[in-house]
């Protein structure tokens, strides 16, 4: 099922992504290459790590030993695919030698960067804005997926494979409350193509090649920082109480996230928080949606709320002084 979804999405995205296939290369070297290529290729280009059997391959990374095989030769000739051969043989400095062979180590390779620019990027149109436009087309399926995902995450002992149209995001374990993140997607965002399935044995055995982190924080950050994901349907007059303060992993929005946390840790009404913090209701809904997805807190009744909200704040001298003081502190600390 997953492969079909990914194929459909991949086909529809072929004009916006660079499709790279890796074949015959060990998973360790493959991960290292993915990380380097993600650093080299500008962020406005998405990268799809696709199977060698897929259509629309923009670049094929193939182990040099398999390059001469009949199947690979046919593929390259028939489809005129750009290729780069990869060797296992370590060199002191990473370089690309004649006949397009890349030698490890790959880190900080200026030669690889130049090769990607001259052989791949220079031939692609500038697609910076197309990706953004695509993000606006979130469908109803997205909400269904999120609700279903949120319910599954509340099950006590399941291992899931989370993915989107770029491929794997993470393998997650609800019992140990851990996420093993794909190394190429540490500071990731996702979009409406977010989906999941129960993790397969092979995916679970490979988790040690991935970055381990706290599941709930990772999910919270994934949802909050993925601007293309829409909120769950939450009424403004609902009251919600979070169980703990989510930990933002980026500086962006930190002040807002902590202020929202300071309100909702007491149990508060969405509309009251919106008015006190002077935020759009969508931002408050997004915060609560991220908390619901990461299984942090629940909807409560008005009587359970401990948040003291003053609808008509009185401007006092003390209030003025404190507001000024907080402002100076923020400015000094760069908060």
């Amino acid at each position, binding site marked *: 099922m997953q492969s079909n979804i990914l194929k459909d999405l991949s086909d529809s995205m072929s004009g916006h992504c660079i499709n790279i296939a890796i074949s015959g290369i060990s998973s360790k070297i493959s991960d290292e290459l993915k990380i380097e290529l993600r650093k080299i290729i500008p962020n406005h280009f998405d990268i799809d790590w696709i199977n060698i059997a897929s259509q629309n391959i923009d670049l094929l990374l193939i182990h040099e030993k398999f390059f001469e095989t009949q199947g690979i030769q046919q593929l390259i000739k028939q489809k005129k695919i750009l290729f780069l051969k990869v060797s296992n043989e370590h060199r002191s400095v990473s370089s690309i030698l004649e006949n397009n062979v890349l030698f490890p180590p790959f880190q900080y390779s200026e030669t690889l960067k130049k090769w990607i620019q001259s052989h791949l990027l220079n031939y692609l149109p500038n697609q910076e804005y197309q990706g953004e436009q695509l993000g606006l087309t979130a469908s109803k399926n997205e909400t269904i997926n999120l609700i279903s995902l949120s319910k599954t995450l509340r099950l006590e002992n399941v291992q899931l494979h989370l993915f989107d149209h770029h491929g794997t995001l993470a393998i997650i374990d609800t019992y140990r409350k851990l996420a093993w993140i794909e190394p190429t997607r540490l500071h990731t965002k996702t979009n409406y193509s977010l989906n999941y399935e129960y993790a397969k044995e092979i995916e679970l055995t490979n988790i040690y090649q991935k970055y381990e982190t706290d599941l709930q924080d990772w999910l919270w950050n994934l949802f909050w920082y993925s601007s293309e994901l829409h909120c769950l349907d939450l009424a403004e007059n609902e009251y919600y109480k979070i169980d703990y303060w989510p*930990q933002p992993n980026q500086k962006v929005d930190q002040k807002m996230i902590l202020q929202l946390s300071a309100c909702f840790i007491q149990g508060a009404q969405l509309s009251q928080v919106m008015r006190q913090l002077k935020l759009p209701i969508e931002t408050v809904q997004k915060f609560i949606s991220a908390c619901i997805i990461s299984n942090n807190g629940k909807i409560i009744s008005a009587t359970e709320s401990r948040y003291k909200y003053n609808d008509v704040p009185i401007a006092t001298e003390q209030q003025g002084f404190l507001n000024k003081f907080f402002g100076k502190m923020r400015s000094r600390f760069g908060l």
Partner: protein
Amino acid sequence: MILQQYKIVFVGSMGAGKTEAIKSLSEIPVLATEAFNTDSKAHNKIQTTVGIDYGEITLDDGAKIGLYGTPGQARFDFIWPLICKGALGVIILIDHNNEAPLEELESYLNTFKSYNKNISIGITHIDENTNHSTTIYREWIIKNKYAYPLFLIDAREKEHILLMIESLVANLEVNFKAMS
């Protein structure tokens, strides 16, 4: 000892990173009173704080915020109320490597919440002990229905310490606005 009008207090177990945290923020060289650690059972660091660590920052109008680090050992408990009185907040740092980090956290919290309500908790050295899960801290917060922010941090990272200070400021702002 200089007692500034505005203070942020760092407390916690030996080796949890109080001195490092203050160093990461202070605009003056931190007045640290370190001595050779003779309590290797509690922590294997070579030196430990035996007095008050002091750092400071100056706001645009010249007002100073004192950053105080108090020793983790109970024999210094006479200093705690003095420093915490009127502080903007208290940051409790707990070393995840400790034998019983939750008991230690509980003990600090029970002591310091009587001096100051605005508390933020940082769990440090999380990469050094992968045998113990860090999920215990969240479970503890939820079980006790505590409203304190709790973050997994590296005390040497300025951004992480700023996250904790921001949580103290956010708490003050939100609760002050709600009451005014």
